């Protein structure tokens, strides 16, 4: 071969370069990843799965769920919201006048239209979100001015994007996948994203019914029925405590019951263990706490 050495060298550079970039560099960066700490808390994230849920990941993999479902929530931006929680001694009208007097501030210049519209609709009910901005410093300065006027407010950090909040509350980060092997990222969304499905749909019974008959909960669902994860058994002296409670049209013949197999229970345990709802340093947001009286 005329340019044997050059070809060999080019192959080494191409393969070696991608190996360095796609294997070595990520391993250096995240290979020693440990559990993260949840913001404003001492709890760690994520928790190791139960044995049942760990086995369920293999059922998820074996049934090709990742062909139609992703496990990665994307985030396009972040917003800071100033929410009024208490007016102090002032009346809503006074506060509106005060906020209108702030319109001359240069940092609020681009927000005055939104602010004016919000104030117009606001009837004095609390808590009320009155300012939404992508600049945290502006939100903090605004909250400080409200405080000086005697009103109490809270600055909340909210993740925003096309996937949010319908599929989760924040984006997926590397820590979320710490105990997934292999990671079931998926690349096609025929069905919804499942990264936070354990928090969104936390009812195990709903999940079982949905696996058995997807059209039961979503009439035009494209998801196939996973009937082979269930046994149709004759009802003995007493019905099984696990038997599904199916409506007419989905129920088996009289005298029979649908009982989930071990695989179905493991798969549901895995689905319920999928969560991405804890605020982390790398993906901060303000969780919604229980409403105040």
């Amino acid at each position, binding site marked *: 071969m005329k340019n044997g050495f050059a070809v060999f060298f080019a192959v080494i550079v191409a393969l070696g370069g991608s190996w360095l970039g796609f294997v070595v560099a990520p391993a250096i960066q995240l290979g020693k990843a440990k559990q993260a700490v949840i913001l*404003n808390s001492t709890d760690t994230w994520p928790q190791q799965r139960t044995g049942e849920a760990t086995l369920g990941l293999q059922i998820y993999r074996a049934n090709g769920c990742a062909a139609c479902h992703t496990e990665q929530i994307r985030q396009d931006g972040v917003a800071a919201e100033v929410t009024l929680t208490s007016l102090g001694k002032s009346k809503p009208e006074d506060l509106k006048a005060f906020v209108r007097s702030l319109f001359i501030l240069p940092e609020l210049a681009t927000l005055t239209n939104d602010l004016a519209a919000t104030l117009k609709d606001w009837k004095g009910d609390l808590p009320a979100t009155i300012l939404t901005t992508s600049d945290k410093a502006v939100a903090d300065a605004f909250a400080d001015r409200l405080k000086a006027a005697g009103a109490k407010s809270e600055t909340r950090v909210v993740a925003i994007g096309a996937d949010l909040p319908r599929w989760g509350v924040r984006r997926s980060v590397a820590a979320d996948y710490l105990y997934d092997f292999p990671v079931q990222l998926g690349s096609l969304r025929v069905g919804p994203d499942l990264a936070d499905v354990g928090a969104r749909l936390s009812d195990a019974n709903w999940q079982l019914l949905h696996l058995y008959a997807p059209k039961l909960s979503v009439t035009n669902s494209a998801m196939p029925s996973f009937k082979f994860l269930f046994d149709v058994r004759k009802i003995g002296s007493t019905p099984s405590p696990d038997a599904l409670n199916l409506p007419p049209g989905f129920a088996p013949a009289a005298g029979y019951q649908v009982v989930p197999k071990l695989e179905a229970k493991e798969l549901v345990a895995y689905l319920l263990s999928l969560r991405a709802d804890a605020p982390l340093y790398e993906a901060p947001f303000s969780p919604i706490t229980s409403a105040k009286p």
Partner: protein
Amino acid sequence: MSEDPSSCPAPTNAEPTATRSTAPMWIVVTTLTLLFLGFVFFDKHSGWFDARIYAPYSSAEQLEAFQPKSGAAAAAAQGKKVYEAVCGICHGVDGLGKPGQAPPLAGSEWVLAKGINRLAHIPLAGVSGTLTVEGKEWNLNMAAMGAALPDGDLAAVLTYMRSAWGNKAGEVTADDIKKIRADIKGTQPMTGDQMKSMPE
């Protein structure tokens, strides 16, 4: 062999051949410089390849600015943290208490009282003797567990107690705690009867 091959005239329809020449140095240098500057620009806008920085954040400063550090969420988290470290040992992290030792806080009329005067006295002064909680009599011996906590932390704990485990009662502020702390005289724990004689 009288013919000399080099003297032959070149055939007119011969295959053209390529010759080699080195690329000009300025192209190599410009390309490498542009590549380098491109990577620097890319890194600068993605947090210098930091594993903790994901889109939409582009720098460590920006990520730091968006950490939620104030407000009700942070206070509730602080309350939970202190509760689990100090109160949860006896009263349980679920607020259900321990039979024979610590009464439940979930649904307790002492926790859910309208005012917080009696409630705040319990951790600040301690309780000994009998006290009725949720219709059950308890023989208590609780030290002043909250006396050493800062006002803000104790307020956060009481707020957490009044909002966790299905409890729904108003917030407690650091100023309330400050006032009640000033009221407490002596170091003796309060008895159940003393507690009941106090305003709520």
